[in-house]
């Protein structure tokens, strides 16, 4: 991806088809002479032994995709973790701290009690018939579990559900969407998926028919998108967020990139917008969202709205508004605007990454296309039922008057305020570091500071065969045990360097992490000063 992005950005004016199409690694075809001979030999001699599934004979689209999350830094981090277990004295730190992925519960965040009570009761409904349950579970969690179990066909979480997800749960989610937006949701628009990622894969699979189908993606963006597009053999069409103005999204930039793609023979099908942004943390203003919607309508694009961080907002200057709500407020009804909105149980204040719960809300699509989507979903039968239930709880949490409401809000508010403080702590700390700039984290779970790396560092990186920010992150890891991801995995303006870190560790831990990073940074900049 890095190579592809740099090729695109360095030569935008000379748009040719080659820029957007991933150059796929060459693989031997079976009509090459050696392989024809192999088949020929089989019939007359015993064939050469060669495994059919080698690196050169697997699907080239698989080879072409990157996974920053599973890249060299993480691999090394895991190795260092092993060393800590066997020879801890070999390393200058006593703990590897994974700040690379927003996995709240692995960094100590506790799950929301009410949600887990309901899930436990649904998993083992025998409990609901026992008197002792009232001593262990809150009354309203028992009521909610009973009501959910009654509404599931077969009254079991162990059965395959409808391929879109259990009706009653989709109804609850649609209702939650209605309460959130002031415009009622439709349960037939909801597809419950194993995490939002599954939904993204399905949409890419649906839309991409050839390497001439392009998807506009923000730079920087979550590597899920580049990987998913590459897996389907499509073309990623990048558009740049503006770092100097708080990672803002300029519709003129969208227009420019779209025109260049068109000139290169790429048919752009959709626009991906992440709100709040990942890894950039910006929250879009309503006016900006209106411009984006008009742009999509004018240019005949499907809007893919990644809204999984909608409950992670840390600024009181802006608030989250769903694209759906904006579109409806503009007077665009169900049929007037093509939109797929993604949500998940992995983020927010609930942080239930391991449950793999999520949904995509599909509005404005042709009903025959929705049928095809449904058919594709049905091949996998259904998403995991626990994740479905959890998603419905997230969209329909305890309300005023419910027994668990007080405890629920206390837990929620503690987590959100801790995240808020963490985000500010991080930004303040990074702003103090020489050569580092960091935008305010308005939302999301990451920050994406930029570092002006000195030339000596760039040279050292090159001689080590790495990108400069990978070199920085590697050194950071080796010195402090802190795992971050280099900006080159997310895309960035060429010549700039960033790294991504989560804001998740607890305040206490965070103070320690930031102090070690500051220390390392000072030494690094000193060592490589010009």
């Amino acid at each position, binding site marked *: 991806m890095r190579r592809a992005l740099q090729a695109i950005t360095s030569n935008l004016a000379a748009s040719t088809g080659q820029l957007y199409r991933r150059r796929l690694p060459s693989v031997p075809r079976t009509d090459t002479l050696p392989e024809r001979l192999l088949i020929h030999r089989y019939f007359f001699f015993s064939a050469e032994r060669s495994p059919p599934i080698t690196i050169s004979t697997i699907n080239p689209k698989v080879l072409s995709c990157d996974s920053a999350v599973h890249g060299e830094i993480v691999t090394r981090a895991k190795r260092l973790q092993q060393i800590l277990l066997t020879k801890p004295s070999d390393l200058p730190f006593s703990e590897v701290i994974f700040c690379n992925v927003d996995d709240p*519960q692995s960094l100590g965040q506790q799950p929301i009690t009410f949600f887990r009570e309901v899930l436990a009761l649904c998993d083992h409904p025998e409990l609901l018939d026992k008197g002792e349950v009232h001593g262990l579970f809150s009354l309203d969690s028992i009521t909610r579990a009973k009501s959910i179990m009654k509404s599931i066909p077969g009254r079991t979480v162990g059965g395959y559900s409808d391929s879109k997800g259990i009706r009653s749960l989709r109804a609850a989610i649609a209702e939650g969407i209605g309460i959130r937006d002031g415009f009622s949701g439709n349960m037939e628009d909801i597809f419950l998926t194993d995490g939002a990622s599954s939904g993204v894969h399905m949409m890419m699979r649906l839309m991409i*028919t050839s390497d001439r189908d392009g998807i506009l993606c923000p730079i920087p963006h979550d590597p899920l998108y580049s990987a998913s597009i590459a897996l389907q053999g499509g073309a990623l069409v990048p558009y740049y967020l503006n770092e100097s103005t708080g990672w803002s999204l300029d519709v003129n930039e969208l227009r420019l990139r779209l025109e260049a793609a068109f000139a290169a023979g790429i048919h752009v099908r959709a626009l991906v917008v992440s709100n709040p942004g990942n890894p950039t943390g910006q929250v879009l203003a309503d006016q900006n969202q209106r411009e984006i919607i008009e742009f999509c309508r004018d240019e005949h694009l*499907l809007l893919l709205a990644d809204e999984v961080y909608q409950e992670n907002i840390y600024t009181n200057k802006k608030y989250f508004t769903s694209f759906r709500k904006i579109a409806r407020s503009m007077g665009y009804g169900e049929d007037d605007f093509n939109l797929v909105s993604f949500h998940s149980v992995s983020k927010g204040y609930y942080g239930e990454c391991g449950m793999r719960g999520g949904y995509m809300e599909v509005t404005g699509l042709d009903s025959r296309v929705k049928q095809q989507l449904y058919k594709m979903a049905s091949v996998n039968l259904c998403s995991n039922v626990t994740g479905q239930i959890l998603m419905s709880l997230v969209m329909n949490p305890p309300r005023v008057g419910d027994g668990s409401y007080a405890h629920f809000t206390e837990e929620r508010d503690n987590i959100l305020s801790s995240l808020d403080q963490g985000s500010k702590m991080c930004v303040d700390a990074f702003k103090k570091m020489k050569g580092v700039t960091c935008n305010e984290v308005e939302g999301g779970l990451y920050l994406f500071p930029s570092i002006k790396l000195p030339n000596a560092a760039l040279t050292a990186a090159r001689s080590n065969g790495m990108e400069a920010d990978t070199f920085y992150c590697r050194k950071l890891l080796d010195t402090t045990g802190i795992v971050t991801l280099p900006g080159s995995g997310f895309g960035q303006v060429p010549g700039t360097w960033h790294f991504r870190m989560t804001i998740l560790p607890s305040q206490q831990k965070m103070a320690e992490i930031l102090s070690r990073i500051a220390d390392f940074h000072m030494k690094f900049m000193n060592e490589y000063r010009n």
Partner: protein
Amino acid sequence: MAPTKVLDPENINENIKNLVYAVRGELYIRASELQKEGKKIIFTNVGNPHALGQKPLTFPRQVMALCQAPFLIDDPNVDLLFPADAIARAKLYLSYTSGGLGAYSDSRGLPGIRQEVCDFLLQRDGYPSDPDLIFLTDGASKGVMQLLNIIVRDKKDGILCPIPQYPLYSATIELVGGTLVPYYLNEENNWGLDIKDLRQQVAAARNKGINVRALVFINPGNPTGQCLSESNLRDLIEFCHNENILMLADEVYQQNIYQDERPFLSAKKVLMDLGLPYSKEVELVSFHTVSKGYWGECGQRGGYFELTNIHPKAVDELYKVASISLSPNVPGQIFVGLMVNPPKPNDISYPRYLQESKSILESLRRRAHIMTDGFNSCRNITCNFTEGAMYSFPKVKLPPAAVAAAKAAGKAPDVFYCIKLLEATGISTVPGSGFGQKEGTFHLRTTILPSEEDMPEVMQMFKKFNDEFMSAYEGPSEPFSR
């Protein structure tokens, strides 16, 4: 500007349009419509035991509840509701995670669970496994999709599939843009494997320029239920070795065995038993799940695959693709662990676990017989015994008038029959055309899952319908069923 659809049927992925997944296709959609209208439907279209009243095993659900709500473990009253071994197991599984069920795991799944799978495989087969070659997945289906996605490059890549097959394979091959190369199971010989046919199909495919990359076999079979013998498996392995073909062993029904002549033998065991050169050269991927067996935990989406003799770089690529989706769902992973490492004879929960699992299996065996006998008692129906898995796949002889009526209605004859069956009785089956069948034959697939109490009535309703259908299209004669 008039609103227009960005995506229309003309500009979306052709492969999606072409694929058919009959298990949730036309019949199921019609059944769901009728259900909404208030008709009582008996869904026998998919192997979904809990939805038809099978109870979950108690121990895993106790462990799961404790893992979901770890605060219970610390509560002084916990032993009023949970046995000590469930509490201990929940603590153990939570210790495997980096933060409970809500934290992402390794993209291949929690190492502790993968080790449990290895221990199980060693015990089952007598051969060690490498936990890094075990991938836990959101159900076995996702694992199958990952493998097919990595193997198939284009339409020239062929995947051998048994006919009849479970349409996950045909649908996924279509989705990833490959070619299905059929090999026919022999219905007259109890759905037996025919190596000669296999050889012919491969040769024919190659003549058409198809690279035959992999062979799928389902043991016990779906929808056919046959259990492969050791010599069947050896023949398959030797064949794949000679032809340089990767083996995809769908073994999800390994716990569902209803005869004693051919107990389950894993492809891995037979492969290792064969020794060199096979044991080091034949590429094999074996799939398992928590959805079937006597577990039937379909909704959890838990499964795994084991890689044998796969090129290490290809393994890396599989890991990379798995990592894009971050991790399989953790509760499903824990169900896999519980399945491969159930209560042992000295555990508190063992007697209950044994009683529950035995009673399910014995009941399934009885239902396999009831259903097979029921179908065979109809003059126009022959049905091989369900030796394993969860299905019955009877062959229905349809009179020419029925075939003509079907054609007039624009439907395949077995689809026509199944729709009529559904409308008359509420029994929702899947027509044989959804699985593949020999030209000119008609089948339907039903599950053996309706409860034992309901079975006689279900068979009665079916026979009554069959009599009426045959009378209508063949003319009055002796009743078709006895």
